[in-house]
């Protein structure tokens, strides 16, 4: 996505140009927030806050220094980590506090039920990861970001990102296996 023409339109006073930014990044941002362990409602608040903050700070964005996706996700990541850290201090964010886990009265096919169960387990396991690990893993699945961009966001080298990602995936697999064993 070429951000320069959009910024030029905003400079000229055309606020509606920003809608293209939201349209382009809303899905990856929600994906990121979901992997960070936020519930649907929390993610909606956070995504709104991230887009609003990006608007307010758009004047600070320098295309010579960073790609827009890297800049936006740095902002979103910092906001999310601050919020999660605050929530953890307040002890308000308990595991699965307001997850979209309402029981569907309609009978579902077995496959869908199993898939839903698996996703819930994965979300629960993700919340057990330390915030820094969760952040790297969540960023790794954002299509717009390569390893170098993740390194810039996390403040480490590309090599360090790869190594940490490998370890985090290992940890995630172990946690998933433990969670499965407990269930059996």
């Amino acid at each position, binding site marked *: 996505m070429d951000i320069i023409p959009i910024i030029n339109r905003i400079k000229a006073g055309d*606020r509606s140009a920003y809608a293209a930014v939201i349209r382009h990044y809303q899905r990856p941002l929600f994906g990121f927030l979901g992997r960070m362990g936020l519930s649907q409602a929390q993610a909606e608040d956070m995504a709104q806050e991230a887009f609003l903050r990006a608007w*307010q700070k*758009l004047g600070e964005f320098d295309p010579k220094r960073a790609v827009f996706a890297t800049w936006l996700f740095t902002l979103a990541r910092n906001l999310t980590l601050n919020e999660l850290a605050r929530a953890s201090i307040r002890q308000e964010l308990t595991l699965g506090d307001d997850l979209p886990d309402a029981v569907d009265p309609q009978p579902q096919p077995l496959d869908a039920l199993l898939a839903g169960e698996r996703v819930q387990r994965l979300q629960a396991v993700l919340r057990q990861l330390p915030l820094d690990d969760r952040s790297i893993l969540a960023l790794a699945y954002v299509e717009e970001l390569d390893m170098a961009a993740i390194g810039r966001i996390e403040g480490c080298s590309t090599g360090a990102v790869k190594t940490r990602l490998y370890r985090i995936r290992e940890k995630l697999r172990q946690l998933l296996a433990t969670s499965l064993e407990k269930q059996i």
Partner: protein
Amino acid sequence: MSDPQEPLLDKELAVGFLEVPDGFEQRVMARIGLEPLPEGLAERSAERVGWARPGRRARRWIEWLALIGGTLVGLLQLFAFIFGVWTTSNLS
């Protein structure tokens, strides 16, 4: 040996768990409508349009010139003071 569940795990993580709610874009744009134009951008566009404000480079030059001018005046004052002290001590 690779875990047969690995591609599934990757797929689930890539797809994400949350949906973008209906009307999300409109809700954000409604909030954006209440915000002023981003600060830096508003200034930059004013720089382009108006004659009243010098460009960023010109402003930097003016700042440097003011600094050098101020330093020169300060040094002249210092030399004048030293010269005054020297003259007074020679006269007495």
